[in-house]
């Protein structure tokens, strides 16, 4: 079906805390969930490996605290991974573990290869700057110095996510939650990134607004063919969007496969519980 993954993640680990003689072991760390009762270290992501293929939507589902956002933050370089590798299959970056690149190169990847839509719009938007300015920010970061060009791109994107143009000079702080998420999506798309991360984009939105945002994401994938990692604790969202799905628990991947398969025939007891509660 697919040839080569566009993004490969290998053995990604992220811990909060130094660890101790007990939890530093390779096996039998003696953790309670993701937490060492002896020293308090949190193992938020443990040995995460997966591939993202061109044009697909990969879902990541798991309960609160399972490490989904931490994983996204590591991939987007908002946080440093404790160890592990990630490879972007791109002429300029092939074969290089992007975690070990200089901060300049990481910034280049963020500005040219990645888009990110945060769970909380406060992290993705400058709430006091205009909506069009928020989109321009990403274009400026990617090196654009032409106002009319950026204004043009921004207007097209805002129309695309159904923000009325007469409000484009307004600051997102005046907008509803759903509108803020749509501005975030427009911003994330501004420099045509091949890879888009979406972290709980519909959490906290009204059901009708949720449907609206989910439709938008579907449409973007269809029209632009962007590869996406969609994170949610809500299996319904994953069912609607994702071609393949990863199930996380306590910082680990416990199950992965085609979304339909996971929903029809979950293997892991935890996934079974998750799926049955959805039905």
């Amino acid at each position: 079906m697919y040839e080569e993954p566009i993004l490969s993640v290998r053995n990604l680990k992220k811990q909060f805390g130094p660890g101790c003689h007990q939890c530093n072991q390779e096996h039998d760390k003696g953790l309670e969930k993701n937490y060492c009762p002896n020293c308090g270290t949190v193992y938020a992501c443990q040995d995460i490996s997966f591939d993202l293929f061109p044009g697909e939507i990969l879902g990541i589902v798991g309960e609160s605290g399972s490490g989904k956002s931490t994983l996204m933050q590591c991939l987007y370089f908002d946080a440093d991974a404790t160890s592990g590798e990630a490879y972007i299959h791109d002429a300029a970056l092939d074969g290089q573990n992007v975690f070990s690149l200089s901060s300049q190169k990481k910034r280049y990847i963020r500005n040219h290869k990645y888009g990110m839509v945060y769970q909380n719009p406060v992290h993705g938007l400058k709430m006091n700057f205009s909506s069009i300015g928020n989109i321009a920010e990403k274009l400026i970061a990617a090196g654009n110095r032409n106002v009319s060009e950026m204004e043009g791109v921004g207007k097209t994107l805002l129309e695309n996510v159904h923000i009325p143009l007469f409000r484009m000079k307004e600051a997102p702080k005046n907008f509803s939650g759903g509108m803020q998420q749509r501005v975030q999506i427009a911003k994330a798309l501004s420099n045509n990134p091949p890879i888009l991360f979406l972290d709980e984009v519909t959490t906290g939105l009204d059901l009708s607004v949720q449907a609206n945002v989910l439709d938008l994401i579907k449409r973007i994938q269809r029209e632009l063919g962007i590869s996406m990692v969609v994170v949610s604790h809500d299996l319904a969202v994953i069912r609607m969007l994702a071609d393949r799905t990863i199930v996380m628990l306590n910082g680990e991947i416990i199950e992965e496969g085609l979304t339909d398969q996971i929903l029809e025939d979950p293997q892991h007891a935890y996934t079974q519980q998750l799926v049955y509660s959805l039905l």
Partner: protein
Amino acid sequence: MKTNTHFAFFDEGSKKEIRRAILKAVAIPGYQVPFASREMPIARGWGTGGLQITLSIIGKQDVLKVIDQGADESVNAVSIKKLVQATTGVKLTERTQESSIIQSRHRIPEVALTEGQILVLQVPMPEPLRPYEAKEYQTKILHSEEDYSGAWLMLFEQIMKYGQTATGADHPVYVNNRYVMAPSPIPRFDNPKMHQSEALILLGAGREKKIYAVPPYTDVASLAFDDYPFAVESFEGKHCHLCGATNVFMDELIDHSTGETIYQCNDTSYCMERLNANVEAEVEENHV
């Protein structure tokens, strides 16, 4: 009260420390060097940053000029002059070309500065990225990574709002192709004077505890988008109603007898000098 007996107010240790910050600032054009800003007998926000620089570099042979928004006789300028003179005994002047140190707030004089002169600018807000990023820790990272999206974004926002870059003053500049710097609230009109300036320019922010510099003959470019070129305030077709000067930065006034808008040199000593020259020329003419 015991009077301060140190030359130039500060003890030698304090002066040395400030000079070290200045040297570092000169070595890294446009980079903001933190320094231990001292308590001064004038309130912070009234030029204490500039004053501390002046006091730590001034010597007995220096000739000092102090201006506030172009005026040598403003209350602020006068109180700074008084303090420096009382503690150093240096000669004061209003003539730009006679001075070796010029401390200024909000202006660069009209008379071109020359080699050997030092311009000390008072700075209220040294961080050009501050309105974009509130945290000092973050702006330091942005500078170190030369990530100036925020500075450009602020200009973009002004264009969206006003149809043009609306920086009345303090329009950000790229220094030596590396650091984006706040030139202090000088009008855009004065920005080009920083480019390849023959004089050393030192900038001091007392409240924010920062010193930075533009060494002589350094490239200074005002930020501008490709399709919105940088432009200075235009006084085309205007002239000073006192001395007739054109191509200088002028204040707009209302002539109360006629109700008309008239213009006047903002740089008072420049204007005065031209007026005196005009008078001399007239006198000479009458004597011929």
